[in-house]
């Protein structure tokens, strides 16, 4: 039970955080220069966006829940069990970010999710 509560926190906070970060980065626009200094500049601009910090806070929550979870649960169960986050994340991207997911992408995401779940089987 404790494992499942922590798993739910990891999945929901993790995908929520990533969606918030993705939303923030869409505001920055496409990165075209990959010189180290240019990348630092992009990161500097990103760090001034509120949504990035919402994302970082949620991801931090997910990260520490994962740290705790990994201390008693097996890595070959925990890491693959986050397979749920592919479906949750796809729904979030569609609803919150307005991405248009075609049937091909849904099939791919479900296959990936299934594959990760199979890898979790002992």
């Amino acid at each position, binding site marked *: 039970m404790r494992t499942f509560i922590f798993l739910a926190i990891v999945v929901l906070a993790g995908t929520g955080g*990533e*969606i918030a*970060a*993705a939303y923030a*980065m*869409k505001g*920055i*626009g*496409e*990165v*075209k*220069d*990959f010189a180290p200094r240019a*990348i630092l500049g*992009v*990161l500097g601009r*990103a760090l001034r966006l509120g949504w*990035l910090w919402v994302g970082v806070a949620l991801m931090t929550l997910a990260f*520490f829940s994962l*740290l*705790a979870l*990994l*201390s*008693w649960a097996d*890595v*070959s169960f925990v*890491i*693959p069990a986050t397979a749920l*986050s*592919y479906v949750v*994340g*796809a729904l*979030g*991207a*569609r609803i919150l*970010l*307005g*991405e*248009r*997911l*075609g049937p*091909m*992408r849904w*099939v*791919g*995401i*479900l*296959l*990936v*999710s*299934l*594959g*990760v*779940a*199979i*890898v*979790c*089987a002992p």
Partner: protein
Amino acid sequence: MNASASTTKPSSFFACARNGGSTRGRRPRGRVRWLCQLLIPARARSPATKRIPMTWSKSPLLKTCVLVLLVAVFNSVGNVLLAKGMRQMGETQGWSLNILGVYFVRAFTSVWVWLGIGSLILFFVSYLLVLSWADYSYVMPAAAAGYALVPLLGHFLLGEAVTSLHWVGVAFICLGVAIVGRTPPSTTGRG
């Protein structure tokens, strides 16, 4: 006649290979380009791409491929290193804030945990960069290629057994990633 033909064939093949190996016209990133062309449909490649000289950061396709690869590798390497560090610490002794605080401080004395965190920071930076132009619903499953690495890394670094079922899962992941890779990376009109 037949005998002479069969004897000239191998020599001409090797001469060809030698010539091909030494010509200046060979593209240095041929293999990466080939991989991208395999994974991404022609309609996703803009015609403008072909006029731009092929350095990896100028092509939207190549830079998506390169960064997704970095995301996948840093993510799985970071997770495995972190797991190795936490496994060495054992289970928490309780759930009060004091005990948890001491536990987390103790976690940061582990070299493996620090290596894992370093790798996850690199993962996060490359993730943010690729999300500046590509769909979240594209990058997230594409980066799952890294989970195909987890059984390998778990096997070699943590000594976990990898069953044939695991390899079936790895095959599903690879198939799913290949299918997602054939959809256009951005559907929101940016990038």
